[in-house]
């Protein structure tokens, strides 16, 4: 049974179409990266998955349980880190851990102690006096220490410093090794690239692309950079190849589809250097957002 299953999940707020017909499946043990710019519908998706907001149509289930119909049963296996780390200002970090653990009903205390060390949380400090990043750490420690089967994380590293970002990745890897499922909403591409097995790209409330990084790369263009001996010669028109100048004697080519016709054409020309690389996630992402048009979808 899938950890997360959404079918035709749709949410409209008045006239705003926040999410349109989302179909999503996340298998147990998978780390799923949910990418999209601000306002694409990431937080809406999470609120629908958790049953905090009511779907306009469609359904969502966590381990087969509809979280809108039966939130208590669905949430027993889930831990959530909210995008905005609002906690109870008058409680200290330690009191917050205690409170959340009691409401949940279970906690791995030794692991929590380890995480408190790792994330350098000051347990005796009141939440009121914590910066945003430090409040985020409190949420992360509480969520991971629950050892829940599914972790739903909404932009969890916003406000974390690079050291804590490393600690976060380490903790995600640990969770993955234990077989926990992670749904990671983010717009930090390097983070998603580093920890996720599969990626979904959301644009204007629609899932526009989904797959493993390899699959996404395969579908997208390769970047080939060619340097010539002398000025750039004329290249024949080739289907599926976009050409852009990259200095006086070099070209950057975006190739979608097979490389062979291009290589054949280049063989006739005075090439001194040639590099080819797979697209980074950033390029895949930007490709979907039509940045050349200055448009960010939806």
């Amino acid at each position, binding site marked *: 049974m899938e950890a997360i299953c959404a079918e035709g999940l749709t949410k409209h707020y008045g006239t705003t179409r926040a999410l349109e017909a989302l179909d999503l499946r996340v298998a147990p043990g998978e780390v799923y990266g949910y990418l999209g710019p601000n306002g694409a519908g990431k937080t809406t998706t999470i609120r629908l998955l958790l049953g905090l907001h009511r779907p306009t149509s469609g359904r969502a289930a966590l381990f087969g349980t509809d979280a809108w119909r039966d939130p208590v049963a669905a949430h027993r296996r889930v831990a959530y880190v909210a995008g905005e780390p*609002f906690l109870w200002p008058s409680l200290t970090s330690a009191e917050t851990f205690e409170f959340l653990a009691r409401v949940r009903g279970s906690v791995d205390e030794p692991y929590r102690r380890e995480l408190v060390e790792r994330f350098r949380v000051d347990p005796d400090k009141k939440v009121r006096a914590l910066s945003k990043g430090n409040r985020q750490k409190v949420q992360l420690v509480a969520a991971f220490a629950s050892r829940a089967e599914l972790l739903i994380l909404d932009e969890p590293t916003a406000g974390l410093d690079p050291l804590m970002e490393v600690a976060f990745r380490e903790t995600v890897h640990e969770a993955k090794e234990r077989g926990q499922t992670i749904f990671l909403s983010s717009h930090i591409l390097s983070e998603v690239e580093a920890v996720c097995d599969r990626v979904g790209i959301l644009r204007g409330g629609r899932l526009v692309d989904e797959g493993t990084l390899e699959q996404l790369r395969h579908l997208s263009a390769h970047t080939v950079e060619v340097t010539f001996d002398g000025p750039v010669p004329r290249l024949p028109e080739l289907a599926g190849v976009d050409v852009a100048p990259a200095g006086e004697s070099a070209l950057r080519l975006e190739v979608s589809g097979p490389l062979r016709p291009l290589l054949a054409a280049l063989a006739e020309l005075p090439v001194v250097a040639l590099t080819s690389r797979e697209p980074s996630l950033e390029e895949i992402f930007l490709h979907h957002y039509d940045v050349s048009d200055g448009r960010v979808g939806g």
Partner: protein
Amino acid sequence: MGASAASAQLAPEHVRARSPHGAAAAIGRRAFADGRVRTFSFATLLAFIAYVNVSGYAHSFPTLHDRLTFVRSFGDDASVRLFYGQPYDLLHVGGYVAWRVGGTGALFAAAWGVLAAVRALRAEEDAGRWELLLAGAVRRRDAYLAALAGIGAGWLVLWAGLWLGCVGGGLAAGGSAYFALAALTPALAFAGIGALASQLAPSRRVALELGMVALAVFFVLRVVADTSSGAGWLRWATPLGWAEEARAFADPRPLVLLAPLAATAALLWAAGAIALRRDVGSGLLREHDRRAPRTRLLSSPTAQALRGERGSLIGWLVGVGFFAFVIGVISTTFQTARLSESIRRELARFGASLLTPSGILGFYFLFFMLAISLFACAQVVAARREEAGQQLETLLSLPLGRRRWLAGRLAIAIGGSAALALLAALLAWAGARSQGAHVSLADMLGAGANCLPTVLLFLGLSVLALGAWPRATTGIAYGLVSLAFVWQLFGSALGAPSWLLGVSPFHHVGLVPAQQFKALGAVLMCALAAVALVAAFALFERRDLTGE
């Protein structure tokens, strides 16, 4: 290269400077706009109450004889002075209105002042918005003065409301202007206190608590001054007393108003001096940000909510208990002078004879009914705040149902209300007994229990608001209670027909122990409350969680 030359190069042509005072003006407008609902509601209420009392006076006390009798009996009674203060001239409509409207008006104006100042200064700082403003092109001093100007504009609205009510009822424009000024000077002085509390306290909540404690102390001083013989000089020790000593419509003494003005100026100056020196985001009183964990009352969301509301609950218990005892004590002091027929009619409007201790107690328990209803509403508002602050989102992502969370919040509201009603009953009884009055404990417990159906009804309606219109919860909850109460007190003076008076739940309660318990009204209110609660739960379970 000068700074202006550099910025001229950095910023393109179309980036024009707005007016140099733009930032300060915007801050002032913001401060005014933030409190506008409260300000305009209160101003409307002041206008209404003033109007009703002006036009009702001639109707209730047509002859000089009526008025003289009223002065000798009702106006001189300690239990009446407790709330309304010291009367100076009850033989003329102006003096009567100054006493009847001015006393309570000054008290609520003082509360408005604290709220307005804390809202404009400390709440903004708490939310981090003040920092944002000060990072702009505005000096600290100008930002502070602009916020004060916003509060001042709100005060002018109150003044205009009270003045219009008086003039609309037929009082002289000049005298009304002076009266409105005098009655509302406490709002200025307490805005000063709120401003100072905002500098001392490290958070909005503590600032409000400091301000409200100051208000309680100054109110008690006024009560002692007005109800104890030989303690009249104490009036000079409290801004609420200064408003009385201005003696509007009786023996106007404008120079007295220099006292609140000087106090306001001094308080605002002191607050401003601190505001200019301290770090943004902190208060002069340091709060301990670190402590060893205290794990009591963390076992459930309800326990944790109780932990959060503990301070406020204790405050309510102390306040209600104190006044219940005082009212018990003075319930025996009524002067049983001869009353004219028209005064009997006036008193009959309250539905009870005010001539006996149980009559006084029955009448005043109407106020406890109001106070406890407000407490219940405050609990719903606190629940709403947990939702608006998104803590509820974190809670409900745990294995916790919405119904259980809301039921826990309701349990605190109902339990707290019952505790307040019981305490009011016990202490009022103890106070009355200490003066040898013949009031039975059972009767007083009945008076306490009699508060609860009304409280439940307003609680139900507030929760219904939370379920249906979450963002309007606060306004609906407090608004309904206040309107219903004011309508009950003054609706009849407007000559409203009885079916229209009957829309206020307060109209359907028997003033126990003076009157019979009205079972039908109580049952109806409980039934309505139950319907409202069922609907509220259904709505709350079906809607999206809603932020600010």
